[in-house]
């Protein structure tokens, strides 16, 4: 049982499961307690030597009835309650995923992938526990426990009180040791995560470790981490075992108490009207046996509930996270965007950063223009093109598309206008075909080949084991940087948008291939706006205009020719890259 803003709805949504589950649990709990009654009855009838075939039949008949009810009841609650938990988990996971897809970069910068994954695995698991095991435990702890205690009291109040002493002790020690166990469990979990993280990084960076002969140092570090986990593990187990042993011992000690005190009762009440019988003693022991589960359930319940609450808090943080990049309220819809980009005095800071990454940027790019961007590492080239895709918010009235403030345009429309080849070439764990067709519902092989040919990667793909059906993950490790770049390029070309942005997309491509790609850009994409970030002058020299950037500012804009003539900084770059002529 868990309540909270984002989960209360499930009690209504899956009300049918809940109601069936709770009723069958109640039924099972009630029927279950009839077994000791019949058992005690039988013992009494034998002790008093009054058992007859008829009375035996009645008891057997009762037992068969109990069997039938128990089977049905147990079947129903399992199906209803456990499915309730699964449905809650599934639905919550879906909502979290949908929310995640809508969040802006500010969320992802604070939350590591590993931490986000933990939300979907550990936290979701503990919430599911609250909704399935939690409900069972609530009902068993209170209803079954209460009923058993009630029946015990009806047999004998004092004996009930005496036999509850170990239970109370159990509750207290369980609470104290339980907390200690939780702490140790967490510590062990953290130690395990540390070990996972370490090995993960170690094997991801194994090329570096081997190149620098750091195997020994890495091993030394691993030994430390391994030892730490081992220590935490043993210290956890010590307490867990202690609680376990304490539990069984206290529970069984009650049997001794019951026999001892029961003997006293039987002897002292012998012959009176309210004589306590051996059958009742047996019945009492059986009731107590049924009471152990509710006691465990109660202890677990506290645990499950507190874990569930902590998890829900974290999941709420995701579900309630502010979506910072979203459509403006006074959105301007324009049917067909041409792609005229105007930037007026744009200054941009990353969320939370002190210094601006871009300062006073102004330029205009007309539809169909081919633009190059060049500048030093870290001067803001990628930031500038990122802003065009509205991945970040910009101040109003500085960046315009078709004369409309980008902040006023529907985000979907802006992004439909642009195809982007990012620097890091992220590919999905899917076939090459589906990666190229990412922007479409589906893509035919012919189309994919066409786009791959534009990106000069068709030849490579044809050499893959399953050509266009090759899974990226399978070959992931052996896909070279250049191949990834060009598949990512084919994916962007397949989007067929009016603006194509290439962020340092030919850095790992050889000269001839680069020339082919440039040829395609000039001849096949005449009508498209192209924005190309590059370091080689040869990549961008043939473009209409070049934006030269330095330190977050634009130094100059112009054709290769103009820049070479007028801008010393550009001339330096060209000269540095200038190739000595042959003697022809």
């Amino acid at each position, binding site marked *: 049982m868990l309540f909270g803003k984002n989960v209360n709805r499930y009690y209504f949504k899956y009300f049918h499961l809940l109601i069936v589950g709770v009723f069958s649990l109640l039924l099972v709990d009630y029927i279950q307690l009839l077994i000791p009654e019949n058992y005690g009855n039988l013992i009494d009838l034998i002790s008093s030597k009054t058992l007859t075939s008829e009375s035996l039949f009645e008891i057997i008949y009762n037992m068969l009835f109990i069997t039938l009810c128990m089977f049905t009841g147990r079947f129903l609650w399992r199906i209803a309650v456990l499915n309730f938990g699964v449905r809650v988990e599934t639905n919550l996971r879906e909502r979290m995923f949908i929310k995640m897809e809508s969040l802006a970069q500010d969320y992802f910068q604070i939350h590591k992938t590993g931490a986000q994954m933990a939300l979907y695995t550990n936290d979701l698991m503990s919430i599911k526990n609250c909704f399935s095991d939690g409900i069972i435990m609530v009902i068993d702890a209170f209803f079954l426990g209460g009923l058993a205690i009630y029946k015990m009291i009806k047999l004998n109040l004092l004996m009930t009180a005496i036999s509850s002493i170990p239970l109370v002790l159990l509750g207290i020690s369980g609470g104290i040791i339980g907390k200690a166990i939780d702490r140790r469990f967490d510590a062990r979990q953290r130690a395990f995560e540390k070990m996972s993280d370490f090995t993960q990084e170690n094997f991801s960076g194994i090329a570096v470790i081997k190149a620098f002969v750091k195997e020994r140092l890495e091993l030394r570090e691993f030994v430390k981490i391994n030892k730490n986990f081992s220590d935490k593990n043993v210290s956890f187990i010590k307490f867990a075992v202690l609680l376990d042993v304490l539990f069984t011992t206290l529970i069984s000690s009650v049997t*001794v108490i019951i026999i001892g005190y029961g003997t006293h009762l039987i002897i002292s009440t012998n012959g009176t009207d309210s004589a306590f019988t051996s059958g009742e003693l047996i019945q009492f022991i059986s009731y107590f046996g049924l009471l152990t589960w509710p006691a465990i359930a109660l202890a677990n319940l506290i645990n499950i509930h507190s874990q569930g609450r902590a998890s829900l808090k974290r999941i709420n943080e995701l579900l309630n996270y502010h979506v910072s990049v979203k459509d403006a309220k006074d959105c301007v819809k324009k049917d067909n965007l041409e792609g005229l980009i105007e930037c007026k005095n744009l200054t941009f800071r990353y969320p939370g950063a002190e210094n601006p990454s871009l300062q006073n940027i102004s330029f205009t790019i007309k539809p169909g223009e081919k633009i190059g961007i060049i500048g030093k590492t870290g001067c803001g080239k990628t930031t500038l093109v990122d802003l065009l895709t509205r991945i970040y918010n910009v101040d109003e009235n500085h960046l315009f598309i078709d004369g409309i403030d980008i902040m006023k345009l529907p985000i979907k429309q802006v992004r439909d206008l642009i195809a982007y080849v990012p620097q890091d070439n992220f590919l999905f764990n899917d076939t090459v075909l589906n990666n190229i067709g990412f922007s479409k519902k589906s893509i035919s092989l012919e189309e994919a080949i066409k786009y791959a040919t534009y990106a000069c990667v068709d030849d490579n793909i044809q050499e893959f084991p399953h050509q266009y059906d090759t899974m990226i993950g399978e070959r992931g490790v052996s896909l070279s940087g250049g191949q990834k770049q060009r598949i990512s390029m084919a994916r962007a070309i397949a989007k067929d948008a009016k603006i194509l942005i290439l962020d340092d997309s030919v850095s790992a491509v050889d000269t001839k291939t680069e020339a082919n790609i440039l040829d395609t850009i000039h001849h096949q994409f005449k009508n498209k706006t192209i924005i190309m970030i590059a370091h080689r002058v040869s990549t961008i020299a043939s473009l209409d205009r070049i934006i030269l950037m330095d330190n977050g500012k634009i130094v100059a804009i112009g054709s290769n020719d103009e820049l070479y003539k007028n801008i010393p900084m550009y001339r330096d770059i060209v000269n540095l890259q200038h190739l000595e002529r042959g003697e022809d």
Partner: protein
Amino acid sequence: MIIVILLVIVWTIICIKPKKYHFILDENAKVSKEKTKKLEKGVYKLLLKYSKLQLDKFVVAFFMMIVAVGINLVTPLLLGSATTLLSREIIDVKKIIIIVVAYLIILIVACVIQYYQSIILAKAGDKIIYQMREDVFIKLEGLSIDQLNKTPVGKLVTRVTSDTNALNDMYTSTIVNLIRNVLTIVGVVVSMLLVNVRLALWVFVSTPVVAILSIIFRKLARKIYRKVRKGITSVNTSLSENISGVKLTQIFNQETKQIDSFKKVNNDLKSSYSKQILLFGIFRPSIYAVYVLTISLLFYVAGNDIINSNFALESGLIVIFYSYIEKLFTPIQNLAEQFNVLQSALAAGERIYEVLNTKPDLVDAEDAFEVDYLKGDIEFRHVWFAYEDEDWILKDVSFKIKAKETVAFVGATGSGKTTILSLIVRNYDIQKGQILIDGIDIKKYKIACLRKHIGQMLQDVFLFSGTIKSNITLRSEEISDFVIEESCKFVNADKVINKLPNQYDEVVRERGKNFSSGERQLISFARVVSHKPNIMILDEATSNIDTETESLIQDSLKKMMNIGTMLIVAHRLSTIQHSDKIIVLKKGQIIESGTHLELLAKKGYYYSLYQIQYKNENNEI
């Protein structure tokens, strides 16, 4: 009847003989039956070998367990005789006191034994797993890059962490519980027979039903469990890549598509879970029903017997059998699940066995030696190399590089440039020919020594999470702050670093994602320089760095006295045009070599590359 039961138990054990999964590093490999057997044997040998480390403790724990099981069997007898005594008209208080005291003593003994047995086992298991984990890590760390690259990182991590954990459970609880349960079942059966043969045989009627139910259930459960596991894996895979790729999805406006495909895997998982719930929903209540029916049967048979014996038999009989039935059903139910756990533990054991039995591709020769310094003469003599079979990547490549020379390799993608560089540091061994450094075959050097003196700037830059400083030193304490700063100055990374709020202590997030690719290249460049290599290998080392910084780096590298020879692969011809020698490769063969100007004069392949870049650069000047 006993024979029937024993047969059932034996049959159960035979049935659970672990099914073979294959976890060879290459998962698709089909393994022959013979190999499977060998593997199976190997796993048992391995598990035995490790358990020998803590053999004394296991023996102690085993004896403790036998005592505990014995004690467990006595308690119903005590309870039964107490009831019988109490049912009589004249109650023998003394005897009851004896019973109570005996019960109490047994309880305390059982408690102590239980505690120590668990702790001993846990500690033994922990020690074993600690050692095993270290062994696995050492083994994996010693494999060649080629071997490691064939397995996804996630799987390697699983070998070290989860698989060893699964074996921990096996050592500490699974096997012990299994033995305990089997012993308990046998003990209960024998005790029942000793107390009352007729009643015992009646009670046993239900055991085959339970056994058969359990076996059928186990088979189905395994199938569904696998489905559920698969479902969880696909949900998690989909999640993690969508979290990494969210920016791309947003830019491409494909949120709906990704959400739809996630909904599909999510719902698949849900239906697998539902199936699992249904299966358990039938099995568990069925077993419970059989249990209650057995009790009813006991009541009926024992009740009738008592009536027929005219109450010569006493009520204690029913109490004893009632308790024994309880003690019989719990282990039978648990057995089925414990075998599942054992099976997955054995599967993990197989995977670990595979790892520990993998032979590293590259090992030092017995007479391998170390040197303090490499001058930097490099020679390839008729080198033939293929990653696989006869698929030659290099065909009869020969060249000589003199110390202090700067040599560049040029050619199209797949021409073998990167391969040449990785052969020099012995990431692979060649099939034919010889590679010599300073006139000595590189196989004669210790691999560690070779790599220590050769600085590698790799194509794929990798940064570890930590700080800039930790990324440069890579845990080497002997690299001083002065050297770090000097190295950064050398490669012009200092300008970028000084701008950061924490400078050299600035946090680097996983894979360095808080730095641009150019910045990452600069930091890893500083890493190479700080390790003071004699020979330097640059594989597309400056592709994401602007030209000005690049030329500054090249100038400083030339000034560095420790560097003898420099080998460069780059696509930008401007990067390499001043090299002492340019070697042009095509499809694994050297087609021409010489200086920039010599090659231009030849008007060959290099000239055509030059034309392309020159034309693009100058078409408007």
